[in-house]
């Protein structure tokens, strides 16, 4: 599936719920499916700055695709990053860099996050794209 298809899929899933308590419940469930970062990468260097809860992210290249893993000490944060990883993981660096993230506005995620968490979300996307830049340079 392309990034755009995955985004559409998530938008459709979120549309199934009537209210934000249910959507949070779903995010908590998604948090439990997050591909966890290996313990050796859970370092200070891999903490994403700008999040109120701790978030670690790591990326590896598998062929020509970037594979992300992550973790957080807060479960809703894990859910948010699980959504991002579902969209961006196992994609080519070029596609990750070119992807727009308007699906976040479409599901209304940003406006339903507290300001600190919304900032954290922006930081997470930035960090995932930074990894893509690094691997694109490596591949070219």
């Amino acid at each position: 599936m392309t990034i755009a298809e995955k985004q559409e899929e998530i938008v459709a899933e979120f549309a199934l719920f009537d209210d934000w308590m249910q959507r949070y419940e779903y995010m908590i469930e998604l948090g439990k499916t997050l591909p966890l970062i290996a313990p050796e990468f859970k370092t200070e260097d891999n903490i994403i700055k700008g999040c109120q809860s701790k978030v670690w992210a790591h990326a590896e290249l598998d062929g020509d695709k970037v594979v992300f893993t992550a973790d957080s000490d807060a479960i809703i944060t894990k859910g948010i990053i699980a959504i991002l990883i579902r969209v961006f993981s196992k994609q080519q660096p070029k596609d990750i860099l070119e992807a727009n993230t308007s699906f976040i506005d479409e599901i209304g995620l940003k406006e339903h996050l507290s300001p600190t968490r919304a900032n954290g979300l922006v930081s997470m996307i930035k960090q995932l794209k930074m990894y893509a830049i690094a691997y694109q340079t490596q591949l070219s």
Partner: protein
Amino acid sequence: MFSTPLDLAKIRAEFPILARKVNGQPLVYLDNAATSQTPLAVIEAISDYYKHTNANIHRGVHSLSQEATDQFEGARDKIRAHINAAHTHEVIITSGTTHSINLVAYGFGHLLDQGDELIVSELEHHANIVPWQMLCERTGAKLKVIPMTQDGTLDMEAYSNLLNARTKVVFVNHVSNALGIINPIEYIIKEAHAVGAAVLIDGAQATPHMVPDVRGLDADFYTTSAHKICGPTGIGMLYGKEEWLRKLPPYQGGGEMIDQVSFEKTTYADLPHKFEAGTPNIAGGVGFGAAIDYMHSIGFKTLAAHENDLLLHATEKLKKIDGMCIYGDVPNKVAVISFNVAGIHPYDLGTLLDKMGIAVRTGHHCCQPIMDHYKIPGTVRASFAFYNTHEEVERFIAGVEKAVGMLR
């Protein structure tokens, strides 16, 4: 089940914001330790000031200026009476507690020598730590810390051992903002005075719940912010004993704080204006005065008794939740509960409560040393005001139970 001498329906009607909905649910506001809500009496005092009196103070020849001055100085005298200061000129109007502490810490820069010592407590808000650390950097003075014990109370034996002839200033909060514990400031002040040190008390978290008697306490400095006691934001007060305020140099230069200005020599105005450079927050001052009147119209003893009932009710119910850990669960505290539930991040809990219309604070509460002490990233803090109800406590408890169920 619960009886209270407060007419809560009437009181709540005086706070328009309490009637609003948040995320589709009636608001349950339990973040009063951060900012209390504002009653109509205060909103109208500010509004009336702008509608009828607005002018600059202290120097106008015209009537509006005189009336504005009277209102602002009237508010200063209300504060004086409220805190039982001997003189109105011992009350400095500031933008709040943080401003007050910076003003005093700056002033002591001129009174300290290298090797002098300052004492802070581990329970302090960052606002009562950082200005003094900056002072230490400027002067070479040393910062000593009164440690907290596991239950959140201060170790008074350790405090006594820190005091010596080099101790110049001790600064502690009257009530801890992160835990709600009332500190033994009478003892702290007495011991500090025995070695000749001055004491600054940060009263931001005490003043919503009790009347500070600065003379009874013999505090050298006492400060609070209006927005903690139903007043507007951006205004507060610093009480200082006259002898100390005379020793401290002005904090900022400008209009209002001068006596004579020439390029050869400027002389400063007398107290309190020496510390009030520039046009003050006049409407804020008027609102502060109105807030003090409002709080007294309810009565501090009455409101504290009701808040204590809410505290006991909420504490008892919270303790029944599996994995509950309340920090600073000691008898001598105000209506603040700081807690975590095992295995759950406070931020997750706070987020879900917000979706249910329940406002609490999560995080380190500007008290990272306390969080480091307990080795936690933060807590959930519910802080109650006199306008909160037992029904709201029940909704809060049900909300925590629901969120915990979702997060486990």
